[in-house]
C-alpha cells in the first residue's frame, strides 16, 4: 500500500480547503448521506435550472481528508453539467473506484479526469472507499428523489 498515492497534494489541498462547502441558496434538490460506521456525514444541495442543468451545487459536512476532497472535487466537476451528464459522471467515477482503471466518460476534460484519478489511491485502502464515494452516492439520491421525500427525516420516534 502506498500512503503517498492516497494523500496526494491535490487531495490534501481539497481536504483542507474544500470548494463549495456551503449551502446553496434556493436549492431545489438535496440529500443527506451517512457512514454509520465512522460517523461521516454529508449534505449535498443542488440547484437545477429549468433545463435541468446544475446551476449551483454545494455541500455541508464533516469527514476525513478523503471524503472532504472527494466532495469538493465532485462539486467542482459537475457544476454547469446537465442532470443526465451528471449521472453518467457519477456512475463512471464509482466504476473507476470499484473496478476500472480509468475514467472513461467523454463528458470530462483531460485535466478534470486527472483530478478525479487522484482519488483512485483509495482502491488500495478498502475501508476508505466509502469515504471517497459517500458524497457521490448522496448526489445520486439528491437527483433521484423529490424535495419532499428528502426533507422527511427518517427518524424513528
Amino acid at each position, binding site marked *: 500500500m502506498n500512503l503517498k498515492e492516497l494523500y496526494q497534494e491535490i487531495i490534501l489541498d481539497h481536504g483542507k480547503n474544500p470548494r463549495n462547502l456551503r449551502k446553496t441558496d434556493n436549492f431545489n434538490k438535496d440529500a443527506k448521506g451517512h457512514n454509520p460506521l465512522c460517523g461521516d456525514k454529508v449534505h449535498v444541495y443542488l440547484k437545477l435550472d429549468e433545463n435541468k442543468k446544475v446551476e449551483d451545487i454545494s455541500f455541508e459536512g464533516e469527514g476525513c481528508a478523503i471524503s472532504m476532497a472527494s466532495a469538493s472535487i465532485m462539486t467542482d466537476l459537475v457544476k454547469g453539467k446537465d442532470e443526465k451528464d451528471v449521472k453518467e459522471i457519477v456512475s463512471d467515477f464509482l466504476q473507476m473506484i470499484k473496478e476500472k482503471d480509468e475514467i472513461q466518460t467523454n463528458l470530462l476534460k483531460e485535466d478534470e479526469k486527472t483530478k478525479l484519478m487522484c482519488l483512485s489511491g483509495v482502491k488500495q485502502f478498502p475501508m476508505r472507499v466509502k469515504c471517497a464515494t459517500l458524497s457521490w452516492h448522496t448526489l445520486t439520491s439528491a437527483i433521484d428523489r423529490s424535495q419532499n421525500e428528502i426533507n422527511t427525516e427518517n427518524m424513528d*420516534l
Partner: protein
Amino acid sequence: MNIDNIKKEFPIFNNKVQNNDLVYLDSANSSQKPQLVVDRIYDFYTKEFSNVGRSVHYLAVAATNLYENTRVLVQQYINAKDKNEIVFTKGATEAINLVANTFGQKFLSKGDEILLTELEHHSNYVPWHYLRQSKGVNIRFAEINENGDVTIESIEKNITKKTKIIAITHLSNVTGAILPIKEIIDLAHSKNIPVLIDGCQGAPHLKLDMQELDCDFYAISCHKMYGPTGLGILYAKKKWLEELPPYQGGGGMIREVKKEGITYGDLPNKFEAGTMATAQVIAFGESIKFLNKIGIKNIEKHEKNLTMYGEEVLRKNNSVKLIGNPKNKGSVLSFTLDGVHAHDIATILDEDGVAIRAGHHCCQILHDKLGLSATARASLGVYNVKEDLDKLNESLKKCIKIFNG
C-alpha cells in the same frame, strides 16, 4: 473428497473415548467438526484476530472481508437471491425468536392464528407461545398421521382466515419426516400467508434452494452443519428484513443516534447488533466449503443408504420399535426397546462407545401425542458408516440381555 472415507477428516475419531472407538450417533443434536474448520478458528485467533467492521486497521479490514465472505458462501450454498438476506444469529433458536418477536410486534394482534405442527421442536414453539401472552394470538398444531408425518391435508385443514404465519420444521428431529414444504409454501402463498421453515435438521442433510423453495424465512443451526457452536443463520426475504423492526439494539446496527431518536442501518446490519461471533462466522465458511467439496447430492445418497440399512437392521431386532414411518425420511432413527427405558439404553450403549440421545428431544408435544415419555434416537452424519449401525444393534442386544435376561 470421497464420502466413504470422510471419517478421517474429523479428528475426534482419532481418539478413544473411554477406551472405545467412538460410534457417534448424535448428529441431530450436534455434529462433529472437520479438521479444516477447527484449524480455521485456530489460525484466525493466532494470526489474524480483530473485531470486524469497526476499525480501519489492516487486521480489522481483513477480518471484515473474511466475515462477509462467509455471508456470500452461505448465500450461494442456499441459493438466496441477495447476500443481505443472510443474517448471522447465535443459533437457530435466536433466528426463530427474531422472527416471532419482530413479526409479532408488527403484524399480529388478538385473535390472529399461528400454525405450527405437532412435530415442532420447542425452539419453534416457545417463541410463538410468547405471542399468546403479549398479543393474544392463538396457536394451532397441524396433526401428525399414524406414520409420524405431517401431510399437506393436515396443514390445509388448519389454515383459517385468521392464519397469519405458518412455522414448520423441514425435517423432524424425532420421526425423521421430511415435510412437503414446497407444497405447503405454495399453498400458504396462495392464501397470502408467509412461511417460516425450521431448517435445523434440513440444512445439514438436504439440498437447499431458497429461490426455488420461495419460503419467507429459513432458520439454520451451524453447529449441526459441521460448524462451530454459538452460530446460527436466519435467511429471510429482503422485503421482510426491510419491513420488520430491528430485534436486538446495540452497536453496529444503527444509522444515526440522537438523544431523541434513532435510525437503523441497512441490511443485514440492522439485525446484527453488537459484536458478532466473528471467529465462528469465518470458520463456518470452511464448513460450507467442506460440504461443497463432498457435494450435497452425495451426502443425501450416503445418508439415505445408511438410514435404510439402519432401519433394516433394527427391524430384524424384534424388541425394537421404530418411531414413525414417514414417506420421506431423513437420517434419524428414533425407537423404543421393549422393557428398557430410553435412558437406560443410552447409558448401556455409552459403555460401548455408542453415543445416542434419549429423552423427548425437545419435542414434548410430539411425545405426548405418541404416548411416550422418552425415546432413544440414533441420528446420522456424513461420517457414519454401516458398521456404526451394526455396533448400535449389538449394544441394543446387550441392553435386552441385561434387562430381560
